[in-house]
């Protein structure tokens, strides 16, 4: 097959995100990752939730399923379980994934289906005009709020860890290269992978802006010192090679997850491939699951007769 270029992963659909929106960087990073990995276009499927972020699939020239608010994970898991050959990527907003979708976030962690999941973390409900999202901190008041936020924020990294995600990373929408590399790692990871993408929303979030991340408004330093730092560059390696390492790494992950303000870590906090994926768990019961998953099975012959035989089951229920 001919080599696929970056442009091949772009659609001509008019993109209506606000100028300067962090989502553009994420979109590019996904397209770059797909192209660098040369994933055949028809093999890839982007699932999304609802929100500004939810529009992402329409701009990527692979299968795109723009689902319901908060439900991207179950939709995506269903497809991946039915056809593990697909390269499925789930994306969505922080309100989508951690507000209305928090139950599925936890539920997905328990299954560990082999899917990367990117949350566009902009601290607001973008598409409904800037209400506080679950990642906005208590007491913060972005410009669209009437009163300061009365909810605590949820910590996505820690929540992913506790829920059972086996790959946990964070990146930043304006560091497209880092983000792209992180996405590639998430795709390659065998199991459920979470990437928390810090995504400034210039329209509604006037607190954690691009400038803020760049450190421009740090009061105590003359020159802007970026707040974001890379944990790998600080010598951290999140990969688990033996089950016994998990507990030790746990506190480090949680420590990273609560760093905020002057120092914000990005990178891969955790990767554990020792935990069986949901596919492997199914294959314990259905031996040929990988060879003949649900989507690959013929259910009828050329005459449209059923391929299945129910005789053995009926025999057990037969009266005489």
């Amino acid at each position, binding site marked *: 097959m001919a080599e696929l270029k970056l442009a091949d992963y772009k659609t001509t659909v008019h993109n209506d995100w606000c100028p300067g929106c962090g989502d553009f960087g994420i979109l590019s990073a996904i397209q770059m990752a797909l192209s660098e990995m040369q994933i055949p276009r028809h093999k890839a499927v982007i699932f999304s939730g609802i929100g500004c972020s939810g529009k992402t699939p329409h701009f990527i020239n692979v299968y795109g399923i723009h689902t319901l608010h908060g439900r991207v994970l179950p939709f995506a898991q*269903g497809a991946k379980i039915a056809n593990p050959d697909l390269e499925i990527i789930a994306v969505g907003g922080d309100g989508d994934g951690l507000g209305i979708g928090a139950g599925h976030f936890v539920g997905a962690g328990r299954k560990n289906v082999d899917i990367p999941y990117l949350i566009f973390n902009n601290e607001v409900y973008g598409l409904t005009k800037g209400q506080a999202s679950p990642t906005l901190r208590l007491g913060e008041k972005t410009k669209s709020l009437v009163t300061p936020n009365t909810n605590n924020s949820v910590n996505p990294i820690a929540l992913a860890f506790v829920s059972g995600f086996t790959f946990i990373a964070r990146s930043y929408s304006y560091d497209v290269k880092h983000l792209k590399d992180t996405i590639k790692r998430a795709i390659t990871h065998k199991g459920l992978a979470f990437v928390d993408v810090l995504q400034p929303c210039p329209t509604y979030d006037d607190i954690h802006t691009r400038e803020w991340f760049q450190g421009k408004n740090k009061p105590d330093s003359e020159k802007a010192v970026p707040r974001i730092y890379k944990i790998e560059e600080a010598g951290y390696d999140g990969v688990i090679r033996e089950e016994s390492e998990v507990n030790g790494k746990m506190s480090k992950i949680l420590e990273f997850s609560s760093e905020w303000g002057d120092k914000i870590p990005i990178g891969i906090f955790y990767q554990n491939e020792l935990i069986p994926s949901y596919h492997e768990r199914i294959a314990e019961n*259905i031996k040929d699951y990988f060879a003949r998953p*649900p989507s690959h099975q013929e259910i009828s012959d050329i005459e*449209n007769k059923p*391929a299945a035989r*129910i005789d053995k089951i009926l025999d057990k229920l037969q009266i*005489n």
Partner: protein
Amino acid sequence: MSFLANANSISWLIGGPQGSGVDSAANIFAKTCAKEGFHIFGKREFYSNIKGEHSYFTIRISEKPVSSQLEEINMLVSFDAETVFRHADKVSPSGVIIYDSSLAETVLDEVPSIDFQANKRIGKLLEDSGQPLNLSGMLELAKARGCIVYGLPYYEMIEAVAKKMNDPKLSKLSRVVNVMAISASISLLGIKKDMLISAIQEVFGSKPKLVTSNIEAAEYAYSYIGTKFDTKNIKNKITPKDVLKDYVLISGSQAAAIGKILGGCRFQTYYPITPASDESEFLESNQIIDQVDGKNGSVVVVQTEDEIAAITMAIGASLTGVRTATATSGPGFSLMAEALGWAGMNEVPLVVTMYQRAGPSTGLPTRHEQSDLLFAINAGHGDFPKIVLASGDIEEAFYDSIKVFNFAEIYQLPVIHLLDKAISSSIQTCKRFSNDLKIERGKFKSVIDKNQSEGTAGHFQRFKLEDSPISMRVPIGTENAIFWNTGDEHTEEGHISEDPENRNKMMDKRMKKLDLALEKIAENDKAICYDFESDSKNVVISWGSTKGAILEALEKLSEEGSKLRFIQVRLLHPFPTETVKKFLTDAKLVIDVEMNYSSQLGSLVQQNTGKEIDYKIVKYNGRPMSTTEIYIALKSILSGNNERRIVLDGGT
């Protein structure tokens, strides 16, 4: 009231605390009788409870096919006091009661699981007839009516068996009391012991120890009756016509699950809920599928974190081209409304097997009702197409389980298959199901020629308007066929579009499927008219699990010379207006029979056919309709009763 218990047919009931083996006893009894050659219809009744509350199983055995229950009981089998307190008054004169003789002096108030309402009712019954408020009082009442009662000293009997088996661990053996009880009843009915033995072997087949002890107990009880009692007076000795060849004894949830397997369902999601989970668990137990080609297939059954995940995961799976279903009941279905709309909007084939139970809200979770019809039809905001089909009995549940997948794929939409607790957990002797069915997948391809992909943006047109209302469908992952889906209104490729003109075309495309479905779906799947070989202008109309009870009542009325026509509506949405109108053309009296408060089908009939419903027979006390009460209600209407709405209240 024993008008329906003709010769060679009896109505039998076993009761006991939940968890004490009532179900398995009833199953052994049913199997035994079926082996003997009888047709069986059995119905379970239990509380939303795990252990201790009263549960019971009614079984009708008959030389002719039966598909409903009666109000009256010909033989009541018990091993606790509550069963006698609750059911003895339903035993017909000349009927039989088997009870634990050591419990004779049990006082009504001492049975804590009899709630105060039932306590009051039973107490009043006893008081009014001057009986003491204890079990003996109950039995005296029955005897006065002509019932024959057999007290069995279960404890002593168990001791005897234990001794015989040389196994003094009586405590374990106490679990055989249920088998003793049914064995006694089988003996009284004059059915051969061999059948019982082999039924026990089948039911406990996997546990040899249980087989032995249960057989010993059964043998003992069987001969105990013969030796201790004079059974000449028993009016209930029955003999079958013939053996049942190629028959299965099966429940509705089993039938539906097997239908799904044959129908090609390879992915099912569920979140536990009564009475739907039985089906998923049966599927899981049979996840490896035999195939004609000798290979194995498999069905992946996924337990999800909730019902929203169940339906959305199912939709995700369906996009890969798999036949997919989810099974649930009212509360779970309520949570699925939003996602149904997404499936409708994106033209995704999906089957929701909906096991109705008594609502609203948590309602009576283990009881019967058909009250989700209008909700199923209207579930989800906005206008989108779906199909709602209701099966009338266990056999239909099987065949319909295949059809609903065909509909879902042909019309590319969600199909709600309405069943209910009366179908799912009842058992019946059915002619062994046929393998010879058709799988119709509609416009579906998994290979697309590069040149066919020419949407506006050079892409596959998943929602091609030219082919309205049904466009070609491909699994995600197909080469040359990239498309998009979105819950938003969309273009032919599936991209968001707010254009008003496109919107109209897409709405028309989707909604026109309903017209197409009405045009193509077989008449027999829309509605069935049973005319009892007459041109009676008195019409009974109903849907779902009431079918059996209605048919039997009409048969009886027909024998008595009052012929009525019966319209069973199967396709509830889109409503088969023409078909139903045709069956109603010359109708004089239209009687709607439904197991819900508001006569939901009645509303649909009026809305769609303009024909007014003259009488409504409804029931909503959580118990299924018996043939007996339908018969009586119809009879009263035919004889000029002018109540327009009759509320049935039978059942315990």
